């Protein structure tokens, strides 16, 4: 009976949805700091997973939390380098040039990963083993619980950072009004670099968490990045709650779409939703309409 599948689809939707939400948050951080769409976000995700896999292979004795942290830091550095290098050098160019630079960065990261780790798919063992537990007709692997748990932790930390630390408040201020923030002595440039670093780390975490479910190869990042972007658009581009809600909603829609309509077109569905939202409600479900001024 098809309704028996409901809980299962819902669980898998929530799982991929929270990963999309993490990726969408990465877009959101950079959008708020610079007004740019970072096309390399998907590559951050892929790179996070790849570094974690490589770290585990190189030093099997390394405890998992350290592997996680190191990969996140490494990808954060890649993000900071991207900002400090090519983007900062071109900061006076028009926005299209900057966006295309991130496209170039994304292709370069793909190419470099392919050279380093080859074209094969890589795997990562799931957290807490692979014995599923049964929750009300849905089989749930411990990895899913970890994903949900860590996503919530990230959200809480981000909220705390933005609302209860001076740095976070400075970041919100710089996003709101960069000139004003500069005038009161905030180094906006550093905050922008920090935003790139944070979104790199978030992407890396999403990548590490998703790999046990789907495996990872050099060209997986693009699709994941686009899904995250679709989630961010769905929720209202640039809004933090919007990114989370949009990512979750996209995951659920995708899961039910794959289950009830066609799994072959699962990936196409996300983009149909993206185009549909752009068509019907460009501000997203939770976003507000911005007013352009001359």
């Amino acid at each position, binding site marked *: 009976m098809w309704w028996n599948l409901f809980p299962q689809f819902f669980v898998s939707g929530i799982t991929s949805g929270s990963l999309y939400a993490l990726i969408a948050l990465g877009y959101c951080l950079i959008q708020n700091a610079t*007004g*740019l*769409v970072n*096309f390399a976000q998907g590559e951050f995700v892929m790179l996070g997973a790849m570094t974690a896999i490589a770290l585990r292979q190189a030093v099997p004795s390394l405890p998992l939390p350290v592997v996680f942290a190191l990969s996140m830091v490494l990808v954060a550095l890649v993000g900071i380098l991207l900002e400090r290098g*090519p983007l900062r*050098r*071109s*900061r*006076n*160019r*028009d*926005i*299209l*040039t900057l*966006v*295309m*630079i991130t*496209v*170039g*960065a*994304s*292709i*370069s*990261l*793909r*190419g*470099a990963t*392919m*050279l380093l780790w080859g074209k094969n798919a890589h795997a990562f063992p799931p957290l807490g083993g692979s014995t599923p537990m049964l929750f009300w007709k849905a089989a749930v692997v411990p990895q899913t619980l970890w994903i949900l748990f860590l996503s919530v932790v990230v959200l809480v930390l981000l909220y705390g950072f933005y609302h209860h630390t001076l740095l976070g408040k400075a970041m919100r201020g710089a996003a709101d009004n*960069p000139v004003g923030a500069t005038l009161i002595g905030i180094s906006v440039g550093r905050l922008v670099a920090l935003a790139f670093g944070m979104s790199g780390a978030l992407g890396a975490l999403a990548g590490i968490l998703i790999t046990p479910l789907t495996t990872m190869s050099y060209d997986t990042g*693009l*699709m994941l990045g*686009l899904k995250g*972007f*679709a989630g961010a*658009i769905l929720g209202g581009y640039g809004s933090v709650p919007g990114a989370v809600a949009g990512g979750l909603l996209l995951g659920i829609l995708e899961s039910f779409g794959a289950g009830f309509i066609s799994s*072959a*077109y699962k*990936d*196409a569905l*996300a*983009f*149909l939703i*993206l*185009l549909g939202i*752009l*068509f019907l409600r*460009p501000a997203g479900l939770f976003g507000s309409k911005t*007013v*352009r001024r*001359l």
Partner: protein
Amino acid sequence: MKPGRTLSAAPPPGLSNEDGSRRGSVGTPFLPSDWRMLGALTALVLALPLIIRTDYTILLLNIIGLNSLVVLGLNLMIRATGQVSLGHAAFYGLGAYVSAVVGVTFQWPILPSLLLALAVVTLMGFLLSLPTLRLEGHYLVMATLGFNIIVTIVFNQMEDITGGPSGFPGIPKLSLGPWRIASDRDFYFFLWPLVILLLALSLNLMNSRTGRALEAIHERELTTRTLGIPTKRYKVAVFTLSTLYAGIGGFCYAHYVTFISPKTFDIFYSVQLVTMAVVGGMGNLWGGLAGAALLTCLPELLQKFEDFYVLLYGLMLMGVLVFFPQGLLPFLTSLPGRWKKSPRDPWEVPSSSRPAEVGAPGERNSPEGPDEDPGSAAPVHQGPPAMSVRDLSVHFGGLQALYRVSLEVHPGRIVGLIGPNGAGKTTLLNVVSGLLKPDSGEVFLKERSLRGLGPHEIAAAGLGRTFQSVQVYHRMNVLDNVLLGLHLRGRSGFWAGCWRTPGAGREERRLKEEALGLLESFGLGSREHWPVGRLSLLEQKLLELARARASDPSVLLLDEPAGGLNPRESQCLVERISELRSQGLAMVLVEHDMNVVMGLADRVVVLQHGTRIAEGTPREVQQDPRVIAAYLGNRKPGVR
């Protein structure tokens, strides 16, 4: 927030000033203005097969031709909208697959399959552009990327129609009448004339009235709309046109290689196409050709390092953008000029034509100009008002920017609109010109209601305006700026622009004459070929005024014309404005300089906190206690 918009005074090579001034200057109909370069290209294309013996090289040239077609379309779009598509591989693929499937499976002849393929491609392009081009920023890049993924998935999944991942074989070769295009050489002589034709048409288009409008959209979309140019329609049209190029390319490709598979049309091909455009200089039509040639040959030279392709493309794309944002090839071709600085540098101004001393141009035309006295010299029109604003209200969130404001202007009259900062003056002008929608109330031009009209329709109805911060086009020269104002007075469109029809040529000459006349009468006569960035602020304001005058409006809105000018300069501007009044224009003048307002205005309306607090002759208003209170506060000595 657009970093560096004001800093980019020097136009990028592809949009250079010389390019612009050549626009429409060649009188011969149908002959492209770049005919020398095109002739050279044609000679090269004809000569190459004589030298080249191997079919492999011909094949490479054919691939270059196919890529050039798609890149040409991409560049047209970049130049007109400032946005990039990462989905042109999908349109290329659609052109290939539709034509192949109906040609093989349904046995359609070539011509109907071509038409169907192009119809499908342009329909998809049109539908995709509708939602995405409305938006600011880079949504188009993402949306086209998403579209490309969907199309690739569909090619892969619909196995019974497309053959799925294993591809679609057995596509017939093309034939033109008795000429069967079978060999690589045949295809070369079919494809390259097509490339040259489309290149010529695109160059013509960009050199036409339509092309001028397209470039204006790229630089300042909102301003362009207030000049009467339907920017959304133009953007959709140019995007659809650029997908058409990709569709034609895909069609040719399918019937050339006779076997197609989804892999060819995935996102990486889109990235390659964009890289070609970037290397040639984004928006540079000739550069695109060179970029396509370079990046098609490069992998062939590096055949042993196939695994490096992806990284190479990425680094190339990023490196060129960072180090040569105007394109690698335009940079290389500009190198010789850097070594020896030519004496006739177009940016160098001969000392005889230094900016005129302030005020001088005004004095020349003074005999007929009503010099000082506004009330008596202006022709009095007792008819209906040229414009009436009735009960206009606007609020932004909790802020009531305008509350039931009404005013009327008669032909040949100037209404001064004054008030403290934040009183709602510019908001009023923005509502009238259609940039903002009012919550309630209505604006009439003569008897015609402007309700629901967009800025371009309002401009076409006879409303012109200038802006508080001067909105001129820095990528164009002075003449082209005025010609943009004359856009509404011409009619030739995409088709006439592409083919340089005699009608379009006559129209362009007529517009140009008018533009020169306008420049002369605004004291900018010797500046027509100057880049706008070289003009002084006064001259830029005069240029903006000339541009607003060009569309022959019945009502003109002036937003702080004297702002930032010194007294002598503003006197010069005042003279121009009174001249416009004597020509019968109705004007609304927002201004902080009271000397200017009191000298020019026939009536004055005072706004405070979005409401009209006083109206009358300048003298009456000056003595109105509410006005004095609004400007100076109402705490009289001794009164608490």
